[in-house]
């Protein structure tokens, strides 16, 4: 204990002291969050509006209402890649925001919660990739 008291405060030897230098992983996680959030903000409402409301109500046609049009659209590799990016982005966005939400509600273990949530997002992305790229 005495050795601790001799050290200047914030000298970086304590348990919660940050490491020197920028935290590159945090930077990467937040950059990914910002990009995913912009992508979701721009394109997701259009998908929900047409495929979730207008299409099922019969107000407007939607490519997923019939097998022929849906399968034809999803056979295009560009559409596969686009949808995979949207799936990955929205799942990551959800994982990242819920991670900080859980932390702010006072639950400890940010690393464990983060690994679980990012892991779920990664599983969702892998499932989406499998479904999109192995379609008959």
């Amino acid at each position, binding site marked *: *204990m*005495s050795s*601790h*008291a*001799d*050290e*200047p*405060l914030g000298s970086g030897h304590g348990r919660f002291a940050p490491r020197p230098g920028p935290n590159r992983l945090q930077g990467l996680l937040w950059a990914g969050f*910002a990009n995913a*959030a*912009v992508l*979701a*903000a*721009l*394109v*997701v*409402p*259009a*998908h*929900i*509006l*047409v*495929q*979730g*409301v207008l*299409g*099922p*109500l019969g107000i*407007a*046609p*939607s*490519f*997923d*209402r*019939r*097998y*022929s*049009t*849906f*399968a034809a659209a*999803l056979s295009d590799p560009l559409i596969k890649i686009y*949808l995979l990016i949207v*799936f990955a982005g*929205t*799942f990551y*966005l*959800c994982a*990242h*925001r*819920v991670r900080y*939400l859980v932390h702010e*509600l*006072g639950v400890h273990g940010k690393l464990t919660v983060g690994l679980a949530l990012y892991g779920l997002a990664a599983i*969702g992305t892998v*499932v*989406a990739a499998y*479904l*999109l790229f192995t*379609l*008959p």
Partner: protein
Amino acid sequence: MSDRIGAGEVVEVRLDSERPSSPDGAVATQHRPPRTYPYRQPFTWWLRRRGYLLYMIRELTAVPIAVWMVLFLIEIARLRQGAGGYQPLASPAFVVVSLICLVFALWHTFTFLNLAGLIMRIPLGDRNLPARTIVRGAFVAFVVATAVVAGLIIWGGA
């Protein structure tokens, strides 16, 4: 301590125990045990103010968006049942869930694109593009993206 510290001036502050304790209490004394500050925020802190609640709702918008994308993924998985067995999601419950998710998705769009003016720095000569211009540009981009994506989905189904 009557002298003001000038801008850009480097002041060395020593925090060792050899110096007498300063009035601001920033000096570590030798025989004081290290204090810990446990997290004491009540679980319902976000219900205390409208701003906190709106913040919480903003953060939660990501969940309905992800839920709807999972429903879309289920629909894609249904394609495996072939031309005869494919059933699109069409129940009234799906429409209601979609409407709720749409409200949250639009709230995410509104809040995040409004933040764009705060986050982005676009240099323009010797100053930055005004925040209001960036936000307007972001909303124009949203309208264009919505028109293009919705148009392609409708065109693909026609």
